[in-house]
């Protein structure tokens, strides 16, 4: 066996990476290429594609074809894109506001207790996401846990509702709930590395609690904050379950729109085009992250 190994170290390295490259290639790059190609084809009426080049899918995103074949600006899909970014952004901020103190708390616990806290954070992952999202219907929905007391007291009539469900609010709650562990974990990882004598040093040098937080803790946990924000924002942007179950179909996001195009509308090229736009957004955010990470490396050099 040993004798058969290639002699060049470069070649050996490439070969040992082959399984990983193969998995990424087959399960990621090829499907992405197929989607990219499909997004530039013509749609068949009942699903599938016609193999002729067309930019219709991308045009359709912004314009509607009027009866006389002229293009009219149509905001419908832009609203969905806007809603996706808005709700993903809100979910990200909510996760940050709630997740940071949690991560900070855990990082300040005695070493032997921290793993238990981290385990507790990951417990929701043990149950199916779909089931957990259904739980929110029971909480937010008609006659749900929140509404029930209003009915008992009589503020709400038997047919009235607070309208919590099937709204942007419900989607934002669902996204925040689902992705908050992804915010806590990376922030915890950076806070755990943080030397807390630096906080003492800041206090020693006339920093109030807030100044020590904003000038020392925040800058030093920035990599974790950025990683957490990306880990929440990216899956939120393309989320399907939460807008579908909690948004009730009328509040679409990019994820539900893609699903709708492939299944109900049977417009594969259009679905593929939306997926490509989603992918482009993700790549842009990852590039921002890579730049931030490089700055961090310089600081840790030594």
């Amino acid at each position, binding site marked *: 066996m040993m004798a058969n190994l290639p002699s060049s170290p470069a070649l050996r390295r490439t070969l040992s990476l082959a399984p990983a490259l193969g998995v990424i290639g087959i399960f990621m790059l090829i499907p992405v290429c197929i989607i990219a190609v499909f997004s530039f084809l013509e749609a068949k009426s009942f699903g599938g594609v016609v193999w002729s080049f067309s930019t219709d899918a991308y045009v359709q995103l912004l314009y509607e074809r009027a009866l006389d074949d002229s293009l009219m600006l149509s905001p419908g899909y832009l609203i969905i894109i806007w809603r996706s970014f808005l709700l993903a952004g809100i979910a990200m901020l909510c996760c940050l506001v709630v997740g940071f103190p949690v991560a900070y708390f855990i990082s300040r616990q005695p070493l032997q207790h921290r793993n238990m806290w981290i385990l507790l954070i990951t417990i929701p992952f043990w149950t199916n996401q779909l089931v957990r999202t259904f739980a929110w219907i029971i909480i937010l929905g008609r006659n749900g846990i929140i509404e029930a007391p209003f009915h008992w007291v009589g503020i709400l009539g038997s047919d009235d509702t607070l309208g919590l469900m099937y709204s942007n609010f419900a989607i934002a709650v669902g996204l925040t709930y689902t992705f908050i562990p992804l915010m806590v974990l990376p922030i915890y990882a950076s806070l755990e590395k943080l*030397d807390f*004598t*630096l906080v*003492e*040093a*800041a*206090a*020693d*040098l*006339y*920093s*109030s609690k807030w*100044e*020590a937080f904003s*000038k*020392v803790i925040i*800058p*030093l946990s920035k990599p974790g904050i950025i990683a957490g924000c990306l880990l929440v924002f990216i899956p939120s942007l393309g989320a399907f379950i939460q807008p579908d179950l909690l948004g009730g179909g009328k509040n679409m996001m990019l994820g539900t729109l893609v699903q709708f195009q492939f299944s109900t509308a049977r417009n594969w090229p259009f679905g593929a085009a939306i997926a490509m736009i989603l992918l482009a957004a993700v790549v842009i955010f990852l590039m921002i992250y890579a730049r931030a990470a490089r700055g961090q490396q*310089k*600081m*840790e*050099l*030594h």
Partner: protein
Amino acid sequence: MSVAQAAALPIAERARAAVELENVEKTYGTGKSAVKALKGVSFDIADNEFFTLLGPSGCGKTTLLRALAGFESVTAGTIRLFGEDIVDVPTYKRSINTVFQHYSLFPHMSVAENVAYGLKRLKKSKSEIEATVADTLELVKMTDFAGRLPAQLSGGQQQRVALARALAPHPKVLLLDEPLSALDLKLRQSMRQELKQIQARTGITFIFVTHDQDEALSMSDRVAVMSAGYVQQVGTPNEIYEHPANRFVAGFVGDANFIDAQITSPVGAIVTCRTEGGAVLQADARNLLEGQRDVTLFLRPEKVKLAKAGSATVDGEITDIQYLGNSTMMHIDIGEAEPLVVTEPLGEVDQRLRQVGDRVGVILSPSALQILVE
């Protein structure tokens, strides 16, 4: 009570004290698991003084330093900074800065930003900050490194930046928590001298924490020796070394011989006593208590002079010789429980002539033999 006491002090006296500690106590934990880290610590530190807290690890010196900085609250007692009670003043409002043991420089800020940090929090003007940062960096000889990040500096350089950062706001008191312990020997020795010079130049009161007796003796105006949460002795390096208050101080600061003895004639400045081994010695009586008979005599190894056998106070046999370069250390059995430790400086006698098994005369002068307070 403390007010009445403070008022009793002459005003001039009070103004000169930078820090006054009064019965400071610190207890960690509660109930049975409670640990007393500081027990009734009381002493004053004068303005413009280089003061050292010396003691083994766990003696409470770091706890005391952290209480002064405000990182720890005290369980009881009063701490005054230039007459003002600061026990309830939060860290960031105390005009006290700290040089941390592991420097604790802000890794995301350049050297200049680190030094400017305290000044910015104090809302100094931009021009003043720039001027002070430049001056302070020059003081610690780090001007050329102003733009670097801490990670790009060596340990010694980080040490200088940490010092500059703490000095820049010109605090009333500067605390130094074993700042030299992470440096190598040569650097440590040159930094000692430099710290002393910087203290003299800035006129800031330095409180220096160390477990290294050489550091304490060589740099300090005064030293407080601590052990097990108590202050054992406060005094100048000379007082601490020459006239230790008790056996702990005598043993911790420098090497020491202890000889148990009984007083035979307790009269005058020099008393005569008989050791367990039967030798009759004369000792300095300044620490002798009224009516005390059983005493421990204390003697520094370098205070012992050797002579020909039969011509000195007692005779003994050399049982061990260690060559130390600038001196030679010998163990001499003089018939007591412990052999006498003697150091002889190089040059006076050719020590190559001394050999294990030789009989020598040991001169124990009454001024070198002191009675210890237990």
